[in-house]
């Protein structure tokens, strides 16, 4: 027996067989781990998204599962999912996924607007790869909060926000940009303009 085994180990097929067996074993282990964690990862992603949608609509986030079903309906438009919030069947606002190129990669955000597109309700950053501490600060509240209640459409003209230095007082159509991260601040302002134009054209066409 021992002699035969030694002979097989010297053949050319041995490395192939060995690699095959070890690959099957380890892939098997990984597949099991993946299955075990899959549901949890999915759950978390869904929960995060719901929480963000609730946030941009400025709805309560204590009981997300219930409140989301109560206030928010998911709509689809040309493969893009967007959200409507209603209270007693009165439309309170839309929430759209918006995106644009940042300095290092694509920035994804959710933007909620009033049903007439006149005002921004709130904005939430979903995903970004900007420089931590510089462009990454677009996720900070002081920066996002500036967009709250800003006028988007005035006399059928879509507002484009003007960026001003961080410590100056901003007027109605102005946004304080992040020092050292002009590109990231600009990216956000640009993507709001571009995507709101797109959604408005499809839903209302009053521009």
């Amino acid at each position, binding site marked *: 027996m021992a002699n035969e085994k030694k002979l097989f180990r010297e053949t050319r097929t041995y490395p192939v067989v060995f690699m095959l067996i070890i690959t099957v074993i380890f892939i098997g282990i990984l597949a099991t781990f993946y299955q075990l964690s899959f549901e949890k990862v999915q759950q978390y992603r869904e929960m995060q998204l719901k929480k963000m949608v609730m946030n941009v609509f400025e709805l309560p986030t204590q009981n997300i599962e219930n409140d989301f079903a109560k206030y928010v309906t998911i709509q689809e438009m040309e493969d893009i999912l967007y959200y409507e919030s209603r209270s007693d069947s009165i439309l309170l606002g839309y929430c759209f996924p918006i995106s644009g190129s940042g300095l290092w990669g694509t920035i994804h955000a959710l933007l909620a607007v009033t049903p007439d597109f006149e005002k921004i309700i709130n904005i939430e950053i979903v995903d970004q790869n900007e*420089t*931590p*501490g510089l462009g990454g600060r677009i996720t900070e509240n002081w920066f996002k909060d500036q967009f709250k209640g800003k006028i988007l459409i005035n006399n059928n003209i879509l507002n484009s926000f003007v960026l001003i230095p961080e410590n100056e007082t901003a007027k109605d159509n102005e946004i304080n940009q992040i020092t*050292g991260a002009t590109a990231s601040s600009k990216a956000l302002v640009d993507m709001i303009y571009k995507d709101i134009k797109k959604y408005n054209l499809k839903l209302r066409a009053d521009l």
Partner: protein
Amino acid sequence: MKKKEIFITSAFTQNSVWRQILGICSALAVTNLMLNSLVMGLGVIFTLALSGFTISLIREYIPKRIRMMVQTLIIASYVIIVDLFLKAYYPEISKSLGPYVGLIITNCIIMGRAEAFAGKNSPIDSLIDGVGAGIGYTFVLLIIAFVRELFGFGSLFGILILGDWWTNWSIMVMAPSAFFMLAILIWIINTPRQRRG
């Protein structure tokens, strides 16, 4: 070699980062926050210890010519387990570490220990060696992250330490500062050694 000796050697006297200059890429990438560095370190300790153990366990059966392939497969499997675990249970940390967890696979320390130690020694010794090398690596990461987070964000582990009077140094947040910090660290540690001999 005694177990304790193996540990001390791989963690400090032959520290992978400052003696062998291995695993530099990730040491530069994740060290702007203490928490990220700690989690990265734990991931590397886990991978190093278990891949060393596994490789040592089957070292007699691994055909010499394809040993690198086998090592990579085993290392990659453990790294993916770490990645899945973080994604499922610590999604926030997983998000802030981004692609760097997956890149533990290419961390030269792990392949280095597999080649230099696990392929020739018993499973338990390899496990200890892996933990040692991992702790040595984590130790370096934490030192660099300590300075970078303190000066760059004014905080440690996300807790604000320096007050309003402190102006954050943007450079500490970005990659160049990691180069400076790592070079200074290697300089400080290796100078007395060179004087001696």
